[in-house]
């Protein structure tokens, strides 16, 4: 159990470094994916709502502290979305196929980015609608696409897809 937690923490740090270091390469017309969101959602799907809650909070607070935004906003958004989506999925006896995973991740990312933009645009001249069209929706879809590609990759497929497809009766 402890080893699993330490391993997950190390993976989280690697994803955070990748988010910082790889973003310039992954950015398309100013739109970047949220790799930590993918990481949190994978953990949620694998281990349930509480794992999503803790991972979401940790990942979010790390992003908050390194970014120039308001500390706590991303932590609140990520932990809340991961927890309630985990609860929602937990009650269903379904298996998530890659397409389902893409939709789930894109939707989670959309809600997350929308929530964050409410804080981000405080005092800004950019309208919420304009920001939604130009940033929130493209960024959410991009995160969904990267997450989708990840589980189709040989090293990404083994665990996540296995987890996604076999996750039916997990106790959350």
């Amino acid at each position, binding site marked *: 159990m402890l080893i699993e937690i330490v391993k997950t923490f190390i993976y989280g*740090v690697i994803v*955070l*470094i*990748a988010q*910082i*270091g*790889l*973003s*310039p*390469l992954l*950015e398309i*017309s*100013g*739109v*970047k*994916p*949220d790799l*930590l969101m993918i990481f949190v959602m994978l953990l949620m799907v694998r281990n349930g*709502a*509480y794992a999503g*809650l*803790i991972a979401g*909070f940790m990942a*979010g*607070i*790390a*992003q*908050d*502290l*390194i*970014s*120039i*935004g*308001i*500390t*706590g*906003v*991303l*932590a*609140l958004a990520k*932990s*809340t979305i991961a*927890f*309630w989506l985990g*609860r929602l999925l937990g009650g269903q006896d379904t298996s998530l196929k890659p397409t389902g995973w893409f939709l789930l991740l894109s939707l989670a990312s959309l809600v997350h*980015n929308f929530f*964050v*933009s409410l804080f*981000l*645009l405080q*005092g*800004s*001249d*950019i309208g919420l609608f*304009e*920001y939604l069209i*130009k*940033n*929130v929706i493209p*960024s959410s879809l991009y995160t969904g696409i990267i997450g989708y590609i990840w589980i189709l990759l040989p090293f990404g497929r083994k665990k996540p897809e296995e987890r996604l497809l076999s996750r039916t009766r997990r106790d959350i």
Partner: protein
Amino acid sequence: MFGKIKPYVPWLATSLLAMGFIFSNQSPQINTLRQNLTDLILIGAHPVNSILNAPRVWNENTRMREQLAVMSMKIARLGDSGTEALRLRRMMNFRERSSFKLITAEAIGMNPDPGIRSVLINAGSVDSVRVNDAVIVPTGVVGRIYRVGRRSSAVQLLLDPNLGVAGRIANSYDDGIIHSAGMRKLRLDGIPTSATIEVGDSVITSGLGGVFPQGLLIGYVNKISLNPNRWLLDIAVEPSADLGRLMELFIIQKADSAD
């Protein structure tokens, strides 16, 4: 782990904790934590960045060597004119420019939050970087220093929705405010319809905001349209600096902090 408590209690606890962070956003303890964590994470991000940028650095190096050779020839040819230009420049008293000192820094990574437009650089308080110092590249303005750690800093880019820069049309001297327009584009607000502006005009810093010195290139006007309220122009500006591909940056140290 949470078997005996109500399912939503842990969520409520983390939410309250997150809100605690939100309300103590500007506290010195949070700032110290932010600085230390950024310094720490950059130790890991720096090698990743260096490896990823190696091919680009190699190509750029080759191109710059070629440019250097061409420029050396030009300088040799223009030797006399250069001396004359130097003399004229002295006469015109460029005190404003010479009072700045540049600090070189390397962009290590982008902000981990997809919504915020900032980069992390490997220069901090030990290099005399200060909050609100202007950050530029040879092709134009990049942004301003938002937060300073010991060996790292966060730069708020021009593309960040919360940054406004006092801008000016170089030809007509019309002043406005530069804002992000999303998708790596900028817009110049506050220019009246009476202004004489053409597509391709340079937009420079006016120096009125107090953060950026006057005369730094921000970008070029690439679209002009009438604002729906009929007395202002909507001016789209293409940033002159490639804000998505930042490597080496220069921080302008103001005169009062240069010593």
